[in-house]
C-alpha cells in the first residue's frame, strides 16, 4: 500500500546551503503489517516519517524519489491533493504525547476534532465517537476523561489519547515515531499491544519507528535499517535477526545486551555517525566498517534485493563475527 522508493528530503538552510537528512529512503508497508524503521538518532528516521505524513518543517521538502500511496505518488501530486489524501488516510503518533496534546483543550475536544476533520462528522457525532475511541484505547471511564485536560493525565494515558486521536476516522496508515520511547517498560508493552491490536482490527498498515532493536522483534513483521539518511537493509524480522547482512546491522545486533556473554563488555560500533553535511564520498558506513575496501570508500552501493553493501554477494555473515 505504501511504497517509498529512493526518497530524499532536502532542507534549504538559511545559512550554509542545503542539507539532505534523508538521502535514499526505500521501504514498503502493507495493510495489517508493521514495518519497523530502525537506526541511531539523527539517521533520518523521523524526517522520513514527517515526509510521508506531510508534516515536514518549513524549508524542508521531498527532493527526489516517490511516495506511492495506493497507486498515487504523494511526492508528485499537487500539494493540496496530497494533503487531502494524507488527511484522510495517514495518521501519526509521536514520542512526547503530553507535549503533543494542546494544554488548553479537553482530551475529548481534541479527539473529536480529529474525527470531524478526517471523517466529516457532525459535532455531536464526533463527541460520541471521541468517547468511544477513548474507551477503545483503554482509558477507564472515557465519558469523564473526555472532559479533562492533558495535564490531568499521566504520560501513558496521554499516549493512549494520542493513539485514539490518530486512529479517529480509520486511517489506513499509522506512523508511530518513537511512540513508546518516553514510557516505562510495562507501559511500553501495553502501548505496543494496543497498536498491534488496533492494526489488526482496523486493518491498518503501521510504520513503527524506533532506535530500540529490542522492540522490533515483538512488534513488527518487517524491518528497514537506516544509516546516515539511507535505508541500508530491509528484511523480514526473523531473517534480519537470524542473518543480518549489512555490517552496520550486524554491529547493531551485537550491541544488544542479550547477545553479549555474561560479564563481558557490551559490543560497540567504533566511531560516530558522520554529520549529514560531512558525509564521506563512498558508503557512509565505510569509515566505521572493518570490511571496508577502496571500492566502499569510492562509491556508494545501491540498494539491491534489500541490501546496500558492496559485500552483499560475497560475505557470509555467519562466518564473520562483528567487532567486539
Amino acid at each position, binding site marked *: 500500500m505504501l511504497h517509498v522508493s529512493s526518497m530524499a528530503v532536502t532542507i534549504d538552510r538559511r545559512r550554509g546551503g542545503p542539507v539532505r537528512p534523508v538521502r535514499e529512503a526505500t521501504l514498503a508497508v502493507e495493510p495489517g503489517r508493521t514495518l519497523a524503521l530502525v537506526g541511531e538518532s539523527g539517521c533520518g528516521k523521523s524526517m522520513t516519517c514527517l515526509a510521508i505524513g506531510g*508534516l515536514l518543517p518549513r524549508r524542508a521538502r521531498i527532493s527526489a524519489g516517490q511516495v506511492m500511496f495506493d497507486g498515487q505518488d504523494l511526492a508528485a501530486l499537487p500539494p493540496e491533493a496530497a494533503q487531502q489524501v494524507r488527511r484522510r488516510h495517514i495518521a501519526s503518533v*509521536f514520542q*512526547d504525547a503530553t*507535549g*503533543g496534546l494542546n494544554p*488548553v483543550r479537553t482530551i475529548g475536544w481534541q479527539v473529536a476534532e480529529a474525527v470531524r476533520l478526517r471523517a466529516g462528522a457532525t459535532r455531536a457525532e464526533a463527541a460520541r465517537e471521541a468517547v468511544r475511541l477513548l474507551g477503545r484505547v483503554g482509558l477507564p471511564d472515557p465519558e469523564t476523561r473526555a472532559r*479533562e485536560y492533558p495535564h490531568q493525565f499521566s504520560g501513558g494515558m496521554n499516549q493512549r489519547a494520542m493513539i485514539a486521536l490518530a486512529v479517529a476516522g480509520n486511517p489506513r496508515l499509522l506512523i508511530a515515531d518513537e511512540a513508546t520511547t518516553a514510557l516505562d517498560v510495562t507501559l511500553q508493552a501495553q502501548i505496543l499491544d494496543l497498536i498491534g491490536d488496533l492494526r489488526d482490527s482496523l486493518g491498518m498498515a503501521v510504520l513503527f519507528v524506533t532506535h530500540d532493536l529490542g522492540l522490533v522483534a515483538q512488534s513488527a513483521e518487517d524491518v528497514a535499517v537506516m544509516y546516515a539518511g539511507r535505508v541500508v537493509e530491509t528484511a523480514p524480522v526473523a531473517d534480519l535477526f537470524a542473518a543480518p547482512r549489512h555490517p552496520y546491522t550486524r554491529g547493531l545486533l551485537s550491541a544488544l545486551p542479550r547477545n553479549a556473554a555474561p560479564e563481558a563488555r557490551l559490543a560497540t560500533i567504533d566511531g560516530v555517525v558522520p554529520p549529514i553535511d560531512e558525509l564521506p564520498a563512498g558508503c557512509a558506513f565505510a569509515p566505521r566498517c572493518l570490511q571496508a575496501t577502496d571500492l566502499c570508500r569510492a562509491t556508494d552501493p545501491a540498494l539491491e534485493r534489500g541490501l546496500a553493501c558492496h559485500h552483499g554477494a560475497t560475505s557470509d555473515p555467519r562466518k564473520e563475527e562483528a567487532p567486539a
Partner: protein
Amino acid sequence: MLWFLTKTLRAVITMWLVVTFVFFVLRLSGDPTMMLLPDDIDEATRDFYRRLWGLDRPIMVQYWSYLGALLQGDFGISFRNNLDAFGLVWDRVPKTALLTGTALLISLAIGIPLGIVAAFYRDSWLDRGVMAVSVFGFSMPNFFLGILLILVFSLNLRVLPSSGSGTWAHLIMPAATLGVSFAAQFARYTRSSMIDVLNKSYMRTARSKGAGPVRRVNLHALPNAAIPVVTILGFKVGELLGGAVITETVFAWPGIGRLLTNSVAARDLAVVQCIMILLALTMVLANTITDLAYGWLDPRVRVGAKAGAR
C-alpha cells in the same frame, strides 16, 4: 473564598501604603500656602490659611485625621477652589476612561493581528517590516509623537483639532498618540508568544489531523499564545495611565492626568491624594482581573491535577 480574602487583604495593604507614602511625600515637598497664595501676602494671612487647612498641626495628627476621614469616604477639600476633592476628580474620570479605553482598544486591535501575522510568516519581509515599524512605534516618546501629530494634522493640514474634547474628532489624535506605543508592544509580545506556541509539538499534532492554517492559528495556537499576552496586559494598565498624564497635558484633554499635573504644581494636596488613591485602586483591580482571566484561559491554573493521575 480564602483566595478572595487574601486578595482583598493584599489590596487593602497596598492601598494603605500608597496613601501613606503620598501623604508624607507631598507634605515634605513644601508648604502649599507658598504656591497657592500671592507672594506678597503678609504672614498673618498665611497663618490663617494654614490653620484653616489644618497644616499647622503636627504631621502625625494630620495623618491620622486624614486616614479617619478617608475611612468615612471623605477625601478632603481642594485648596484651590474649596470643592470636594473626590467630586472634582470623579468628574474627570469619564474623559480619562474614554481616552485610555480607546487607546487600549486601538492598540490591541492593531498590535495583536500584526503580531500573529508576523509570527506566522516569521523571517519574511512581512515580519521584518512589522517589527521595524514596531521598534519605531515604541521608541517614539509620547509627548514627541503628540506634538508631531499636532504639527501635521492641526497646523499643516488643518483637519483635526489640537486641543479640547468636545467632539469625536478631538479624540483621534490623543488616542492615537497614547495607543501607538502600546500597539507596537502588543505586536512584539504577541509575535514572540505566537512563535513559541507555533513550535510546540501540539501544533504538529494539529497539522497531522489535517487542520488548515486558519484553524490551527485560531483554535490551537491563539488560546495558548493569549496567556502571556493577557498577563502583560495587566501590567500595561499602569503604563497606560502614566501615558495618559502626558498625553492629556499635550492635548489639553480635560481628564485626570491633566488635573493631576495641575494639582501637583499647585500643591493641591487633597486632590493629588485622591487621584493617587484612584490610580492605585485601578491598578489593583486590573491585576485582579488579570489573575481571573489567567485562570479562565489556562486550565492548568483552573483545574489542578487530580490525585489519581500521575
